[in-house]
């Protein structure tokens, strides 16, 4: 038996089957605690430390309100788009938020697709354009846009607050990403409309 092996690759690698250590590990007996350890564990399972995975539930009125909001946003965007020839919209310069490379992180958790800085920069640009061009829009159009933007902002804030408590929650991340996309889409449509002459 080699007692003092030279330091080399072989001693970084898994042990050979015929190595005395392999044999010793193979014979290393499993043991069990002499006493039941559960009572000691149970005493320390404080209710305050109980795991509580965040569950998201909605009441019927909340669901109805959410549905109404979606319809309002979709209607507003559709109404705005319908009033604008597609060719004019398509030729307008657009500010596009850069999405991160993927929405996935390891383990399948979906994160929000837009980095905060990128999203905020895009929103700021679009809001500035919208502010400077808003005089060219019908006041009723401005009202619809602002109402929908406020609703989306509220959804973004709620999602962010919930994510503070549960940062890895896939649903919340996805919800936040969707809300951000909706805000950018609405702002793009609004600025395109205003830049093209509004009403």
């Amino acid at each position, binding site marked *: 038996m080699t*007692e003092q092996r030279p330091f080399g690759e072989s001693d*970084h690698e898994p042990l050979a089957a015929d190595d005395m250590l392999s044999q010793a590990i193979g014979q290393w007996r*499993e*043991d069990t605690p002499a*006493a039941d350890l*559960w009572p000691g564990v149970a005493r320390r399972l404080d209710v305050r430390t109980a795991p509580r*995975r*965040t569950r998201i539930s909605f009441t019927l009125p909340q669901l109805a309100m959410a549905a109404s909001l979606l319809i309002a946003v979709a209607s507003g965007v559709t109404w705005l788009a319908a009033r604008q020839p597609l060719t004019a919209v398509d030729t307008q310069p657009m500010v596009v938020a850069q999405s991160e490379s993927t929405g996935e992180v390891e383990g399948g958790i979906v994160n929000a697709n837009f980095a905060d800085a990128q999203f905020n920069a895009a929103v700021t640009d679009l809001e500035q354009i919208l502010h400077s061009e808003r005089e060219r829009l019908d006041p009723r159009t401005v009202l619809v846009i602002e109402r929908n933007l406020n609703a989306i902002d509220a959804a973004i804030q709620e999602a962010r607050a919930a994510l503070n408590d549960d940062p890895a929650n896939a649903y919340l991340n996805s919800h936040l990403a969707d809300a951000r996309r909706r805000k950018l889409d609405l702002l793009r449509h609004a600025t395109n409309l205003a830049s093209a002459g509004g009403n």
Partner: protein
Amino acid sequence: MPVNDVVLATEGDAAAFERVYRAHLPRIFNLARRMAGPDAADELTQDVFVRAWQKLALFRGESSFATWLHRLAVNVIIERFRTLGTARERFLADSEAALDVAHAPRTKHLDLSMDLQAAIEQLPHGARTVFVLHDVEGYKHEEIGDLLGVSSGTSKSQLHRARQRLRVLLRKEA
């Protein structure tokens, strides 16, 4: 153990968590015994399951629950070593000194009937941890380095020395 017990425990069901505990107790207890010795194994095992209860909400099912729990257990045990006054530098520096096999006594005065458990208890925490994680639990040096906050080269060096020391301690006289 039904998978549902992990889900129920995640939602705060202590009875389900007890079933989870009983299903995983043997592996966690033996991990603690091998890494920290029999005297500390009971308390460390309890610590691991209390920590698991506290962290269950973070288990997302990306790995098997057994893998997640094992990793958590290793972290709890390593933390214990450190809080016992074994700061990282000392954790490994002591190992270097204690494992200086070039000056180790020959085995004639050693108890040659000593089994691996007894032999490994003569190793310092750092070397014992590296040996158990690599040779018994199958971790890679990079993973061990991450867990201990050292380079994979240090992990390799520790393993080499731990193996040599253990061979000396286990050697049977002809």
